[in-house]
């Protein structure tokens, strides 16, 4: 919180001039701060010739904060086209579980334009309450406005936990929210639970490329904030009979202000099912040996209507574009069936696919780590097994095998 020492302030207005957010105005020869517009950037503190401005931590830190004043679990929803990003629904399922443990409600924060209708959907998936900020200015992803709105609501309502998807969007604006609130944020979590006998959120995430799992806590700051990897949690089945409340929030002009203008939004259509949405994923690994053999994976994927994945070695070699990469630095998938073709199973790869229901691994080396996570382990040369497998799948599905 920005504090003005009225004894020192001479009302010169230099802070008002320097503030990019319009958060300071000189009234009756004293600087007045609008806490909703203040981003706590501290530019004014350095500018004030009288040293009258001071950035005070918002009562955060050890022993300074009345933790019991912060209640409830929030999920920041992500709208993608006419739908929600799958991770939003996955988060609501987890939020429901955490909130039930804590005996508090689940609130979803829904930001966008023409999105109010979707609030019902969030309730069906586990929210008790949806706060909707619906405004034409918010139709595209204007991160600055999105961040200010969430921070404003959090200051007002004091949730103990805020969760969001570790997506391009979540990773862009949720760190801004955490910085505005001067609280902790754990990135890319794969597990969340409440500490036994307490209210702290245990936030587990891969560290050192997935070689180690680290559980992080934020025990003397609130809210506790985390972004969560898509496709690691399971969404609840929708229950249309669930009761919930939709609350409209009208953002002030200051909250809507933003400096990055979105001039165009382009949706790129990809061929076949998207990797993260596919029910079956076939992944190419180094065992294919040559780029010419990649067609075996493509062919099997085609027969199974599957998405095509690749290990880092394959994308680095330029056989296929980087957005097919599965693992720690790529995408996480959890399809019904995962077929690893010539994949050795480096830990960085395993963390990106171990949640799959059935894992088939085909590899020459019977000691390959991929077999540690496999349901069905096929020890053999992927170049020999795949043609046979394609033939059998074609027969089964009535596809002509050429």
């Amino acid at each position, binding site marked *: 919180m920005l504090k003005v020492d009225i004894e020192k302030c001479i009302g010169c207005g230099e802070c008002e001039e320097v503030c990019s957010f319009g958060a300071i105005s000189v009234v009756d020869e004293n600087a007045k701060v609008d806490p909703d517009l203040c981003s706590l950037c501290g530019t004014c503190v350095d500018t004030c010739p009288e040293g009258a401005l001071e950035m005070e931590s918002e009562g955060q830190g050890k022993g300074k904060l009345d933790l019991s004043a912060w209640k409830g679990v929030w999920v920041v929803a992500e709208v993608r086209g006419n739908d929600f990003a799958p991770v939003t629904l996955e988060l609501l399922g987890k939020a429901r579980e955490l909130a039930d443990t804590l005996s508090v409600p689940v609130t979803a924060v829904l930001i966008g334009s023409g999105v109010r209708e979707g609030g019902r959907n969030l309730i069906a998936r586990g929210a008790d309450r949806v706060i909707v900020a619906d405004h034409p200015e918010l139709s595209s992803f204007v991160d600055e406005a999105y961040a200010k709105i969430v921070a404003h609501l959090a200051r007002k309502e004091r949730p103990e936990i805020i969760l969001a998807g570790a997506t391009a969007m979540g990773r862009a604006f949720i760190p801004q929210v955490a910085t505005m609130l001067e609280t902790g944020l754990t990135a890319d979590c794969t597990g969340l639970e409440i500490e036994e006998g307490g209210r702290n959120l245990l936030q587990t995430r891969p560290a050192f490329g997935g*070689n180690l799992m680290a559980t992080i806590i934020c025990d003397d700051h609130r809210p506790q904030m985390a972004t969560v990897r898509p496709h690691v949690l399971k969404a609840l089945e929708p229950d249309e009979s669930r009761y919930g409340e939709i609350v409209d929030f009208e953002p002030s002009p200051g909250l809507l202000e933003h400096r990055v203008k979105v001039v165009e939004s382009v949706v790129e259509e990809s061929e076949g099912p998207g990797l993260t949405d596919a029910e079956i994923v076939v992944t190419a690994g180094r065992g294919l040996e040559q780029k010419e053999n990649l067609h075996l994976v493509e062919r099997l994927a085609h027969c199974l209507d599957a998405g095509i994945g690749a290990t880092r070695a394959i994308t680095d070699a330029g056989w296929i574009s980087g957005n097919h990469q599965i693992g720690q630095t790529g995408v996480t998938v959890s399809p019904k069936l995962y077929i690893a073709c010539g994949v050795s199973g480096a830990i960085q790869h395993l963390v990106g696919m171990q949640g799959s229901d059935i894992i088939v691994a085909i590899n020459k080396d019977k000691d390959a780590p991929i077999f540690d996570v496999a349901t069905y382990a096929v020890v053999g040369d992927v170049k020999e097994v795949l043609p046979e497998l394609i033939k059998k799948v074609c027969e089964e599905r009535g596809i002509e095998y050429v």
Partner: protein
Amino acid sequence: MNIVVCIKQVPDAESVKWDRKTGTLIRDGVKSVINPFDYHAIEAALTLKDKLGGKVTAVTMGPPQAQDAIREAMSMGVDEGVVVSDRAFAGADTLATTYTLSKAIRKLGDVDAVFCGKQAIDGDTAQVGPGLAVRLGLPCVTYASHMEILHGGKGLRIRRMSESGFDVVEVEFPVVVTVLSSLNVPRVPSLKGKMRAKKADIPLWSAADIEASPEKIGLSGSPTKVYSTFIPTFEAKREFIEGEPEEQAGALVERLKEAGII
């Protein structure tokens, strides 16, 4: 133009070995390198300078050895660099890191553009760029994959990538930009650059030098703490399918049919 590029020295992913039994990092012989994404941030900063003129300053927080990272950036063409280095910074999470970096950048004077890599490969958080923007009171554009200068040199037009495609955004200077590796191809250090970097005097700034509040840096400025660590274990529930390739394929398809998948 006063351009800043934030870089981080990280353990070389290629040379890091991990003892999976004890869960410890084998540090012997591990080299420190510039975070791979940061090379693209350096290139973005240099490209901007080539077109609009000015100065590029590299900033890093780390131990005194991080001077090596600054020297490498300078060999590529960065004009100056500084290492923000103090024992009191140790244990910083992203909130304390953005505070520390913002204090150092403020000390450099008014900046027009700050470039950061998308994320560092050791922490993988991607939180420092956006957090730093808030600390500096600047707008932020994340995940830049294409960048051009707006007519009149007043700002940038950037392609910001997302899962479903991209946005084309426009922003006036000053701005913070985090960059993807697809943005550019980093230039190779020149011999002249290497010579200059070797001789350069790279200052170390302490917490006092940047006038940092002790309660906002290092461990005390970090709300998040490591509660526990463990080695991921995987449940071995596998069934080996033996035989010739044809038999293996047949047996596998049978299993998948039973499971109702094909």
